[in-house]
């Protein structure tokens, strides 16, 4: 080691002769490694318990091996079939179908395929169910083609075969197309019939309601943050409790409180009737619609607006406004030209936070939203637990997640995740 430290150029070395530079680099590397080692357990935990499940779900939005798994032989033969010819496939394909179906019926997976393809072409489900019942009775001597058409004339329909061919590949964009109200037809990608278009509308509504809620949070949060930041510490600390208590109260408690308050026989309607503002038979409908969702969610998200605004306003020196006033500005100009621009970072931070949180809300819209106040999350939950169309749920989820991630990224750029403050 000592020979590398040539005597003509003085290189600093540590006591055991290692060049100082290398020694420091080594120590730094060890330090980095140690820091990473401390983070590793949590990182691993989050990756396994949280990121992997999400990645897995995202994969479901394009995954489509059900056709290939259920009808392996048919799919291979069907590849060569020309859908544009207008002719149903030839006998060989039907023979393969008979073989595949016999296995599928034995494993009881044909109905699953039927309901999967039913999302793409309504009616196929019954075709598969009926064929599943009859497939055992098929005569192996006679041509399968006629026998299948005998069982269900759906097999004689070119569109049935087109659907099977279209979805026989391992991956599909069908769920994504469905999630944006599109479908693939013979002419290419087209919008769905008007009465079936719901998702874009629902995304639009989610967006619109989130913006409305965010705006009302700004409107209500700004004065509160202002008064908290400018009152003497003793009284502002007391008032802060009024903000923090809702923040710490269970979401379900707050939602149920609003459910109780906003009912037609609830406290608010009773009060309005009592003071004579509303007739007894004209009680306001404030629940199970958009009004209910907006009121309850504004209440729930308001602390998330007030707290960042407050922490920004707290740092604005009162000297600025005083200086503006002594230079001749009136109260409004001093506020609008001097104070307000200084609070914009707080408004930005609070708004993005409120928006991110509200766009993914599920509980409150589910409980007080009725049908006109539900969000895209509720539709995703519906597809997971009721309609069992998991692929569509996943693709809706991907779109929602992408929107949220864009705003998360923005938030990180503007505010920095490190600067998130709680309470």
């Amino acid at each position, binding site marked *: 080691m000592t020979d590398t430290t040539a005597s003509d150029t003085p290189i600093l070395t540590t006591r055991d002769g290692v060049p100082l530079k290398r020694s420091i680099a080594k120590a730094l590397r060890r330090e980095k490694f140690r820091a990473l080692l401390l983070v590793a357990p949590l990182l691993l935990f989050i*990756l396994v318990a949280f990121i992997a499940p999400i990645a897995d779900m995202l994969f479901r939005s394009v995954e489509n091996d059900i056709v290939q798994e259920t009808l392996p032989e048919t799919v291979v033969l069907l590849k060569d079939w020309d859908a544009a010819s207008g002719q149903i496939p030839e006998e060989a394909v039907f023979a393969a179908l008979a073989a595949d179906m016999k296995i599928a019926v034995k494993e009881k997976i044909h109905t699953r395929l039927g309901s999967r393809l039913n999302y793409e072409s309504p009616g196929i489900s019954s075709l598969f169910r009926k064929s599943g019942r009859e497939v055992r009775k098929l005569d192996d001597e006679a041509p399968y083609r006629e026998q299948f058409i005998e069982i269900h004339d759906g097999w004689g329909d070119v569109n049935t075969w087109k659907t099977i061919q279209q979805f026989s590949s391992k991956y599909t964009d069908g769920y994504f197309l469905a999630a944006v109200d599109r479908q693939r037809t013979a002419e290419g990608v087209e919008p769905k019939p008007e009465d079936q278009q719901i998702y874009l509308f629902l995304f639009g509504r989610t967006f619109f309601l989130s913006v409305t809620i965010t705006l009302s949070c700004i409107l209500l949060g700004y004065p509160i943050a202002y008064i908290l930041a400018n009152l003497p510490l003793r009284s502002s600390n007391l008032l802060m409790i009024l903000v923090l208590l809702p923040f710490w109260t269970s979401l379900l408690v707050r939602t149920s409180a609003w459910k109780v308050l906003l009912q037609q026989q609830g406290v608010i309607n009773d009060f309005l009737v009592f003071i004579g503002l509303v007739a007894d038979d004209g009680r306001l409908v404030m629940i199970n619609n958009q009004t209910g969702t907006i009121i309850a969610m504004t209440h729930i998200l308001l602390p998330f607006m007030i707290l960042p605004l407050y922490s920004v306003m707290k740092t604005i020196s009162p000297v600025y406004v005083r200086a503006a006033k002594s230079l001749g500005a009136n109260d409004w100009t001093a506020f609008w030209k001097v104070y307000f621009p200084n609070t914009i970072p707080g408004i930005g931070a609070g708004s993005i936070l409120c928006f991110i949180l509200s766009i993914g809300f599920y509980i409150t819209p589910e409980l007080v939203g009725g049908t006109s106040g539900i969000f895209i999350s509720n539709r995703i939950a519906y597809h997971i637990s009721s309609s069992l169309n998991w692929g569509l749920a996943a693709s809706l989820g991907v779109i929602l997640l992408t929107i949220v991630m864009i705003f998360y990224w923005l938030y990180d750029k503007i505010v920095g995740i490190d600067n998130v403050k709680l309470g």
Partner: protein
Amino acid sequence: MSGLPPYASPLQRFWYYAFRTICGLIFFFLIFPILVIIPLSFNALPFFTFTKEMLSFDPAGYSLINYQDFFTNSDWNNAVYNSFRIAPVATLLATSVGTVAAIGLSRPHIPFRGTIMAILISPMIVPVIISAAGMYFFYSRIGLQGTYWGVILAHAALGTPFVIITVTATLVGFDQSLVRAAANLGADPVRTFFKVQMPLIIPGVVSGALFAFITSFDEVVVILFVGSSHQKTLPWQMFTGLREQISPTILAVATLMVALSIMLLTTLELLRRRSERLRGLSPG
């Protein structure tokens, strides 16, 4: 804001009081829904509004019937039991791993800090329905769906971002030379951690733990998907109660939960004061 100057014009005077009134109304909006359920929970009749007897403070209008139902109904009792079986364990897991990671993240030479931070905070940002759906599919694949430990893992994952945020915030004010001094005096890293670092960051750790606790204790969406009926927690029971047929017992539960949040809030406030006092004392 501090008082109205004696030379204020009538307009200023008007605006001053108008602004205070507006703020008062907004504070009312914030706190009213939470406070109003407390008296309503003592309603003797199964209504969700004040009865005539209640308004005239007639004792006959009030009763503990809702509380009685809560404490005797086996569904609710089970839910309470499950909640207290899940939340503390999830909190312990989230807090221990989270605190260690936060210490690592606060080391000056940590590489890829931004990326790691973004990943660790993501459970707080991702819409809960997406987390729930993903966990449902993935946990059923590995056999954790519907099990106690599946729920614990899910809840701990949701709670860690809060621990990370509060502990890193406390560590910002932490003087790293204290660690070096301890090492210099011969303490090994574990001893240094427990004797030097931990006492100083404990307020951050505890408030992170409280956040993690309340996250798990309040959580309803993920558990609906990941849990089975054996893990039915209090929020789950409330959710089904609210969605199907709203029973006045919910008001009693809500009141008790408000009491719990007041307790948590008080603890947190005391911790904040303690931490401020400690920082005021420590030099630098």
